[in-house]
């Protein structure tokens, strides 16, 4: 068996004729934080969606704690229950209050009693300064608050891996900061994460490793201080240059 928590081997995925991911291999060990960067359309979201089985892979394998989750006959619901996912749009359930959103999966999927789930949820909300929002409906929350609740909704299930896909790109700068602060705390807790982001400052801060995707292939991998400072390929150099010009680096 492998020592890594999540291992992706030669992943390949296309939509119709368009090859979106090609020969993607990586391994994520426990407590590691990997940040995926790359231009829009480079395949970051597709990669994350393959990991939580919201997309079917064409070829290659994905192993979660040694188990091949892409093999035929795997129960996708059970796999997803072990993986936390948060996407760009917050996607809180608008008909449920904040706390109802958070305890839905623990109660329905993980067999936690409602009382116990509430206790855990309140603890999380307390810790991240959202306790006064517990009984509110999501549409009354700011974007930053909604996104933090969405992350907590995933975290409460104690996922083996947390996948975050551009969770701050719909927010303005001040709200971004509060979401990033939460993610940093999760890292301090030892959460294993794979994060797609356009926030390079944040990437530098939390990433153990940065992975640059270019047209569906891993183009460069390494420590953030290396990859983000001295690109080895002109693809990455171009990408960083365009970010710098946009004032985002």
């Amino acid at each position, binding site marked *: 068996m492998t020592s890594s928590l999540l291992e992706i081997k030669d992943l390949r995925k296309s939509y119709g004729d368009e090859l979106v991911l090609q020969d993607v291999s990586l391994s994520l060990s426990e407590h590691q934080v990997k940040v995926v960067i790359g231009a829009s359309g480079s395949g970051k979201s597709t990669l994350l969606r393959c990991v939580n089985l*919201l997309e079917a892979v064409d070829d290659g394998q994905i192993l979660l704690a040694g188990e091949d989750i892409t093999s035929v006959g795997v129960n996708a*619901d059970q796999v*997803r229950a072990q993986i936390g*996912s948060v996407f760009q749009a917050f996607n*809180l*359930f608008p*008909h449920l209050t904040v706390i109802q959103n958070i305890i*839905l999966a623990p109660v*329905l999927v993980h067999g936690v009693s409602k009382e116990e789930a509430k206790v855990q949820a309140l603890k999380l909300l307390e810790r991240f300064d959202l306790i006064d929002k517990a009984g509110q409906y999501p*549409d009354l929350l700011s974007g930053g608050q909604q996104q933090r609740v969405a992350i907590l909704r995933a975290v409460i299930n104690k996922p083996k891996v947390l996948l975050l896909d551009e969770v701050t790109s719909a927010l303005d700068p001040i709200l971004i900061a509060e979401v990033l602060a939460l993610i940093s705390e999760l890292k301090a807790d030892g959460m294993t994460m794979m994060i797609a982001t356009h926030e390079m400052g944040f990437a530098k801060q939390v990433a153990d490793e940065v992975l640059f995707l270019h047209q569906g292939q891993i183009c460069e991998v390494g420590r953030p201080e290396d990859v983000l400072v001295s690109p080895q390929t002109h693809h990455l150099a171009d990408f960083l240059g365009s970010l710098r010009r946009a004032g985002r680096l």
Partner: protein
Amino acid sequence: MSYRPSELRRQREAARHQASRRSTLIATVSTVAIGALLVFVVTGAPGFDRVRESFFNFHYAKTALPHVLSGLWLNLRVMFIAEIFVLIFGLLIALARTSRSPLLYPVRLLAAAYTDFFRGLPLLLVLFLVGFGIPGLQISWIPNSAVVLGTVSLILTYSAYVAEVIRAGIEAVNPAQRMAARALGLTQSQTQRRVVLPQALRKVTPPLLNDLVSLQKDSGLISVLGAIDAIRAAGIETAQSFNFTPYLVAGGLFVLLTIPLTRFTDWLTRKQDRARVQQGQW
């Protein structure tokens, strides 16, 4: 430091006040004018006296009222039973049509055929087919009471309408919601029941209530099968006196019966629109 409204604010408020007084005045004048015109046209019509005698006769209204009321009691029971079954069947059909399970493929096909058929077929024909056709089969265990078969016809027709409304609601729920639920590990059916359906039903409550209003008034059609409901009772009265006032009494009662539901629907629609404006969805 106390706040003192500025001169500018006082001017603004005065202007607003004047504008609102003016619109009230205009509304009043135009209502009175149109009302007067209507009265003039109707009462001035050459046959008005005859019409008034045969449609608005107080004496006949009074003698018909108890019979019509006892007929209405039947309508009420039919409406109530039909509404319950229509909501249940409509929901089940909508769920069948929107499910993706391959196991349910034949059910899906059947449900689609059912809704197409009964949305297209006039209710009156359904009433004839069910009300006269089924007793004709002479199957002993099927009741052949006009009330039961009339109610069944209403249920058959309105389940198709309601199923379509609920299906539209299910399909209007953002697919990202389903994704988010599945990503949390919820199964297909948990996602449907706990995430999609509650949102869908909220979205379609106003059109759903509209269908129920329509069902309430169509409950009067079971009279064609001979069930003695409010309309049939009015018909019996009319046949004795050759005066149409009893029909008007029945009509008035039906309107009274549906007003609470229509008002409630309007109120709910307005409330939802406001909420949507606040959420910036528009």
